[in-house]
């Protein structure tokens, strides 16, 4: 059908996906409205996320990144599709698998890499780490490490948007494991009860750590919305057009009618839960290979755009090369940056103590003997 792409979008030797047919969602209003440049930009963002995260791996293995590293590889179309729909009063918040959303909202990869290194030039000054990226200037509210804990916050973003009379919506992302947290259900109820413009976006990658959806959740995940009389959607996360078409409709309802909804997006992570997960006990290699071979979101979109004559071999290669170079520059930047100092530890704790002048009196930090 199409020419064989020159650069496989997926890592290594994975065979290219052969598109049997164009995306059935290409003509959805949100996608029909896209210019060629915008489509290329969507593709570029997905590639940039993947190359950034792939570049993290050797750095992690060299011991330069501490703690956990939850890679988003395989899920890129979800964050890029969703965040590409954001207007100026739309907001996004997610869990700890947050690198994709960060790049999708437009964060620069240098401070993202520096944050992984724990450097002071990181997006959170080395105070948050991989799980806690934030960019409030881009309406990106993190980056949260407690499963489900960010969902009430996302509901609060929607509450604020509505309270202030703005026409916006919040997207609160969570994993398939998070749906079993009580705070999520409390947030569902509040959102439905009060008509808050929030979308609860479940990125269903089939596993919460090593526990499959079947072993953790009774019933269909999104359908739980019915208990709160919320609309719910299920869509594929491999085709960015499908993600955009679904979320576009849900976002419009949220912005225009203050209607919350649950949107479950089927997706898949190729790597272990975190880099520390040997990924040997709970799923078949074949399952991973099958997904990569048939549904890899980068490859699917690449094929689609080749079909549309938007991407050429040369452009594919150029985008890929640029993304790799960008990831390398991010590493160089992180390497060259300093760590925060001991004095930095007690900065950014209180708003008050970060101002030139205290407003309260008395002792606010309590230290043991130096």
């Amino acid at each position: 059908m199409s020419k064989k792409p020159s650069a496989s979008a997926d890592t290594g030797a994975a065979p290219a996906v052969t598109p049997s047919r164009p995306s059935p969602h290409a003509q959805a209003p949100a996608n029909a409205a896209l210019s060629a440049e915008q489509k290329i930009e969507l593709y570029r963002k997905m590639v940039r996320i993947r190359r950034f995260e792939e570049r993290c791996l050797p750095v992690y293995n060299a011991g330069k990144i501490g703690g956990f590293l939850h890679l988003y590889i395989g899920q890129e179309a979800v964050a890029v599709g969703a965040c590409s729909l954001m207007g100026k009063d739309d907001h996004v918040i997610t869990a700890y698998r947050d690198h994709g959303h960060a790049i999708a909202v437009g964060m620069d990869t240098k401070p993202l890499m520096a944050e992984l290194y724990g450097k002071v030039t990181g997006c959170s000054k080395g105070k948050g780490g991989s799980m806690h990226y934030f960019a409030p200037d881009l309406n990106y509210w993190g980056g949260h490490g407690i499963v489900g804990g960010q969902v009430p916050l996302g509901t609060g973003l929607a509450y604020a948007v509505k309270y202030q009379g703005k026409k916006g919506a919040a997207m609160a992302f969570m994993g398939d494991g998070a749906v079993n947290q009580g705070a999520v259900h409390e947030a569902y109820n509040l959102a439905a009860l009060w008509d808050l413009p929030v979308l609860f976006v479940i990125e269903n990658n089939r596993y919460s750590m090593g526990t499959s959806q079947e072993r953790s959740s009774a019933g269909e995940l999104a359908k739980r919305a019915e208990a709160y009389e919320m609309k719910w959607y299920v869509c594929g996360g491999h085709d960015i057009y499908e993600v955009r078409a679904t979320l576009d409709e849900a976002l419009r309802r949220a912005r225009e009618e203050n209607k919350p909804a649950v949107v479950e997006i089927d997706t898949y992570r190729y790597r272990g839960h975190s880099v520390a997960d040997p990924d040997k006990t709970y799923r078949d290699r074949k399952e991973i290979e099958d997904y990569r071979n048939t549904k890899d979101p980068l490859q699917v979109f690449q094929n689609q755009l080749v079909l549309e004559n938007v991407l050429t071999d040369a452009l594919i290669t150029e985008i890929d090369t640029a993304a790799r170079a960008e990831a390398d520059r991010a590493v160089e930047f992180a390497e060259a940056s300093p760590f925060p100092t001991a004095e930095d530890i007690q900065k950014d704790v209180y708003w008050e103590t970060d101002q030139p002048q205290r407003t309260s009196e008395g002792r606010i930090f309590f230290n043991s003997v130096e």
Partner: protein
Amino acid sequence: MATLTYREAIRAALSEEIERDPNVVILGEEVAQFNGAYKVTEGMLEKYGPKRIVDTPISEAGFIGMGIGASMLGIRPVMELMFWSFYSVAFDQIVNNAANVRYMSGGQIACPIVIRGPANGGTNVGATHSHTPENVLAHHPGLKVVVPSNAADAKALMKTAIRDNDPVMFLENTLLYGVPGEVPEGDITLPFGRAAIAREGKDLTIVSYGRCVVHSLAAAEKMKAEKGLDIEVIDLRTIRPLDVATVLKSVAKTHRVLIVEEQRPFCSVGTMLAATIQEEAFDELDAPILRVGTIDAPAIYAPPVEKQFQLPNPERVVAGILKVMR
């Protein structure tokens, strides 16, 4: 000056702040139509309407988390916990989101939320409804913790709390709600971290806060009448920030310290105070620092036993004073 109860003083602060700032909104269980479980918000729905005074479902994690999220975008929610005891179901939202979000974002986010409600024993409501978590809350950098002992302070500190750009945990007391006091009129605020000398003295310093200040003052009067002792009583007003300087100054004058708190002794606020005083004023001390606190068990129901034995009361404070003076 007007005479207001502690409850009315808080209501006055809430009302004045609602009128001053359109971003102030009060949310909580039964705060609107029911007029508040303890009537703190009585009449406010009628006056300010349902956008500003909002009844929530019984979802502490959900609505407190929602308030924190809204505060990140500039709303100033004042969330009522019917009892502070119910903070446990919202604990994750308070300690991981309210306290940490600024830090984890490298100072990019402010979280100007107030969480308020009563935190006290002494009303025979048993162990689930009698928690006093000021020590637990103050343990978390990022949070500020306020425990007013009287109407005037309650009003001024509430106004400061609502204007503060950090998350403020405001702990009230059901046994103080009906207590009247002189409250200065007008837009009076009080900086956090400024303790009050509730009673001047030279023989011993009692460091206290909240309703224990009332017990301490009663005991001090008794000691004056019976033993001629001049006892200084410090009302901390806020636990974090903490007015260490005022405490140390008093210790340098009296050389003896009794801490009176409605806290179980293990890792209590008093533990922190005692450690700080001995670290920074060891040479001033003529006697070990002692504490009068709650007897170390879950809150007992049996009404006379809770009041006479488990909680601090003037008699137990007197016994503590005599022990330090020995």
